[in-house]
């Protein structure tokens, strides 16, 4: 049954476009992707073999490790805050109270509609000048990082959560209410757990972007990873050694995060194929 269908569709394709049949397309895909991977792999090997100064690594490793720790701290704080705030933004977006949903929409428009770099500048340069007298915070860079990343990513998480809530069938709320649950209780027990599963992939994607967004903090001299690249590069004129360290540092955060999202998705599988 399934085979005959596949054959029929393959024949149909061959006849219909007369250009690629399914088999040719498959070989073309394998060929092109292998070729690409081979090219990139060779280039990488060449760089690692001839361009990286392994003797330099012990000297610059301590400053990279400090930067790595700082980035991790900013990421963990920013993630917790932006996801928590984002859930509230998403809930506000679906509120039946016009004022609440309207204000949430404006919030999202602003923080999604202006560059993160601009928002960092607003917080870093703008806020201290508004202070009557001397701004009390000495080291404003890291607080700026956390504030700007949280405000920016709460907007994206909020949109993901809004979409997740929208994808929950109306009947779920009705069923919960018909059992005597209040609106808040029904949201908490029934709608939000399902909305969260729906939103998980989009939220995970956004949080991985948050990790990479810490690189922008180099412009306000937060000693993060790109800042270390710049300091090593300007001292040694060696681009590849610090670049490789930067790549390893980011990937060692973002790849496990991707895995964590997959794990969370699998864990809320609820007994099989999605409804």
């Amino acid at each position, binding site marked *: 049954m399934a085979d005959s269908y596949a054959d029929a569709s393959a024949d149909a394709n061959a006849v219909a476009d007369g250009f690629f049949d399914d088999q040719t397309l498959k070989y073309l895909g394998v060929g092109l992707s292998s070729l690409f991977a081979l090219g990139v792999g060779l280039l990488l090997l060449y760089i690692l073999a001839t361009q990286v100064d392994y003797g330099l690594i012990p000297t610059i490793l301590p400053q990279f490790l400090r930067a790595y720790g700082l980035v991790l701290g900013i990421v963990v704080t920013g993630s917790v805050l932006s996801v928590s705030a984002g859930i509230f933004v998403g809930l506000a977006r679906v509120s039946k109270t016009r004022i609440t949903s309207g204000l949430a929409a404006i919030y999202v428009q602003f923080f999604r509609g202006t560059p993160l770099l601009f928002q960092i500048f607003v917080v870093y340069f703008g806020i201290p000048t508004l202070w009557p007298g001397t701004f009390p915070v000495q080291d404003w860079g890291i607080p700026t990082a956390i504030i700007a990343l949280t405000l920016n990513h709460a907007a994206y998480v909020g949109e993901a959560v809004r979409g997740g809530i929208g994808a929950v069938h109306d009947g779920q709320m009705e069923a919960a209410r*018909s059992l*005597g649950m209040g609106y808040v209780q029904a949201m908490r027990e029934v709608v939000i757990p399902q909305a969260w599963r729906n939103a998980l992939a989009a939220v995970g994607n956004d949080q991985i972007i948050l990790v990479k967004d810490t690189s922008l903090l180099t412009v306000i001299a937060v000693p993060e990873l790109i800042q270390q690249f710049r300091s090593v590069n300007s001292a040694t004129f060696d681009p590849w050694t610090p670049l490789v360290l930067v790549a390893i540092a980011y990937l060692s955060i973002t790849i496990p995060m991707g895995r964590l999202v997959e794990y969370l998705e699998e864990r809320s599988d*609820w*007994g*099989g194929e*999605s409804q």
Partner: protein
Amino acid sequence: MSDSDRDSAGGPGDHALLEFEHVDKYFGDTHVLKDISLDVEDGEVCVVIGPSGSGKSTLLRCANRLEEIQNGEIRLDGRSISDPDADINRLRQRIGMVFQSFNLFPHKTAIENLTLAPRKVRGTGEAAARQRAEELLAEVGLSDQADSYPNQLSGGQQQRVAIARALAMDPRVMLFDEVTSALDPELVGEVLEVMRGLADEGMTMMVVTHEMGFAREVADRVVLMDEGRIVETGAPESFFENPETERGEQFLSKLL
């Protein structure tokens, strides 16, 4: 039912268990329920039939205020459901509702679907809620599926869990909104059988359905709706054999 039956039904005063009194309902400009008055007595199985778009599902949904009405009043055991100040969460605990699309909670197992509302709404302890849920699952023949997720159950099994979920709140009346319409034909029987069992136990039921066999066999009273009005009510034998109105005759002739 005669008036003397109604008086002997007990409860405070001489009212029916579920009363619709001159109910009007509009969707925008569309007048979907027109001056509906209907009493469902304690222990009665009231089956509402009629062509699609006749307002029968809307009437049922008004009975636990999933839809608001614009005129008239709906009362459960003498207490207004339609009053804006009514404690609707409290009243809904006494009104079980079963939906065409089951609406089980997909992130909860069958037994968790049953225990959620008793625990969270009524504050029943975990152990007591589980015990009651196990009894109810046994009653609908699904003891072996307690730990299955809705996704792992057939449509008929899901609908039986949904009935048990509504029963877990010990409702005074059960509302069934075309509960077999989304099922494969071979799964309809098992759901109707559960409903028949409930009727036999004396549960007060208001059933919107297209299953005329069920209406004929289980109903104490059949209500025919058309274009937002109640056209005819009567005992199933007399209604199906000998409808009083022309509209009733027409409706039945289309079925046969």
